[in-house]
């Protein structure tokens, strides 16, 4: 025993010739990623941190200005920052829970023993494959406030139709509707579907023997068993929603009157329209800080409601 342990300890410290060769080979296969990691991830992140403390407009060399960019962003020098963060949160708070409910509902429907399952799944999944630019244009056309196809429907019911993307109040909810169409049947739904198929049948049968109805089985078995998957989709949903860019950029361009001016649009505009690179880098760190904080917070809170099978 002791000898074997000592041997193991020794071999841990000194590699055999074969182990050394294998380690060398392992690094050789890792090299593409190592280069990519340093060139396209580590270096940009370091540059980004440094840039955020400078004024840099591409034409002249960067000029160190300390915390000025952050102060400008946070302390009211730029009155678009806080409202745009607020709008991004408003969009996330509307779209993520609604999206999760819709995805789970579709997954439950498709988890019934349906004929032509592949066909139904395709119907719900296709919007998530459509390029977001095409999605934005198609919905702008559906939502056209003067001649859109929805107008006759509203007239038929006798309700006034909102002006959708052209209205201050409805612009963000309209984008939420677009995101529901785009994402509800997409990857989150597929992940829910896989999760539903992992719920142990014995648990369901045991509950049935105890006289549990559908609703109770859903609340007391399905939801707890799905909680890791709900958690995963929730985090991915929040991150995605706070970064939303394509549909807003194309469908509304941030308007009307900044109604859909999200933080991502603000960063884009600052960097690639005004070429105010130092300030844009500071803004991007602001968004990163929000996303990372939220992710850590969700992981902390998750132990109160996420149930891990066998762990």
């Amino acid at each position: 025993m002791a000898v074997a342990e000592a041997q193991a300890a020794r071999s841990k410290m000194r590699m055999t010739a074969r182990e050394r060769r294998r380690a060398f080979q392992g690094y050789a296969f890792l090299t593409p990623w190592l280069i990519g990691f340093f060139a396209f991830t580590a270096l940009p992140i370091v540059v980004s941190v440094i840039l955020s403390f400078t004024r840099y407009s591409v034409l002249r060399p960067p000029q160190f200005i300390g915390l000025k960019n952050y102060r400008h962003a946070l302390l009211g020098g730029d009155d678009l920052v806080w409202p745009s963060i607020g709008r991004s949160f408003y969009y996330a708070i509307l779209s993520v829970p609604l999206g999760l409910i819709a995805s789970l509902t579709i997954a439950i429907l498709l988890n019934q023993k349906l004929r032509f399952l592949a066909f139904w799944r395709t119907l719900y999944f296709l919007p998530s494959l459509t390029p977001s630019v095409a999605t934005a244009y198609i919905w702008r056309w559906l939502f056209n406030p003067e001649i859109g196809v929805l107008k006759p429907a509203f007239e038929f019911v006798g309700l006034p139709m909102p002006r959708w993307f052209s209205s201050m109040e409805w612009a963000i909810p309209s984008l939420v509707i677009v995101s529901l169409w785009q994402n509800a049947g997409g990857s989150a739904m597929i992940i829910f579907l896989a999760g539903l198929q992992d719920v142990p049948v014995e648990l369901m049968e045991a509950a049935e023997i105890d006289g549990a109805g559908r609703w109770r089985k859903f609340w007391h078995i399905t939801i707890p068993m799905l909680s890791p998957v709900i958690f995963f989709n929730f985090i991915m949903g929040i991150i995605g929603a706070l970064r939303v860019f394509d549909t807003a950029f194309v469908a509304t361009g941030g308007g009307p009157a900044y109604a859909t001016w999200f933080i991502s649009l603000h960063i884009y505009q600052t960097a690639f329209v005004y070429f105010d690179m130092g300030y844009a880098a500071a803004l991007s760190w602001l968004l990163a800080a929000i996303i990372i904080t939220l992710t850590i917070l969700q992981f902390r809170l998750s132990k109160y409601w996420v149930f891990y099978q066998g762990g």
Partner: protein
Amino acid sequence: MTAEKTLISSRTMRKRRQPLRRIIGRIILYIIVGLGGACFMFPFFWAFISSGKSAAEIASYPPTLWPKKMLFVENYSRIWTEAPFLLWIRNSAVITSLNLIGAIASASVVAYSFARFEYPGKNLWFFLMLSTMMIPGEVRLIPTYLIFKSLGWINTIKPLVVPAWFGGGAFNIFLLRQFYMTIPRDLDEAAEMDGAGPLRIFLNVILPLSKPAIATAATLGFIGNWNNFMGPLIYLNDPEKMTAVQGLRYFALGTTYSQLSAGPPKDNLLMAASIVVALPCLILFFVAQKYFVQGIATTGLKG
């Protein structure tokens, strides 16, 4: 006797009622699934109908449910002549394939390193690789742009292609590594006995067995590249270098490409072009449906 009779009759009753209730339940289920599916399909349907209308008809109210004069053929041929749409599609295809080949080649090699070799620092690199998925892309966007600018790569496809050849993305590495882990090591060892080196084992044992995982990475990667909006928006300036997705904006802005002068918005052509741009992704899904489902489910559940 009577008690027994009622018991039997109630049991047969229940037996008879059960299928009926079940059938009604099934019908309701199919109606719900069908209505939901119709809602999800309606935008495509409407885009298609609009793509067959004349400029006058599409601008009229109330909208017609079917084009009075079907101009499908005319509109779908006009999108190629009014703008260099074929060129844009070709650009998209070139960028997508060069990016994909690089991403798959390098990710499969890197995943091999993570799955089959032991070396100091491996766990640290693996952790760093996974954490890059958590860092919002925005913080890399600006410095990466400046780096490519200093290399003189702006307005070329290099920024959209070259990074993929160095690692191929954390998602792909993780996906492939997970798959390699399920391949029995005995196969490696048997090949090694026969005198195969690590490269031979990789090419002749691991890769041929990993076709499903590679197909998954390729299908998801195709969608990501083909639909990429922000990359081309930032890096490509010349109209001749635009991708198909970017090209849609020309139809929407109501400009004719040759003069870039503002004309009336061409919603019918815009809808036709939108459908054409979306088509490759939809076709890919029909062909490779199971790879999508598997890929999303494994990385989502076991991730």
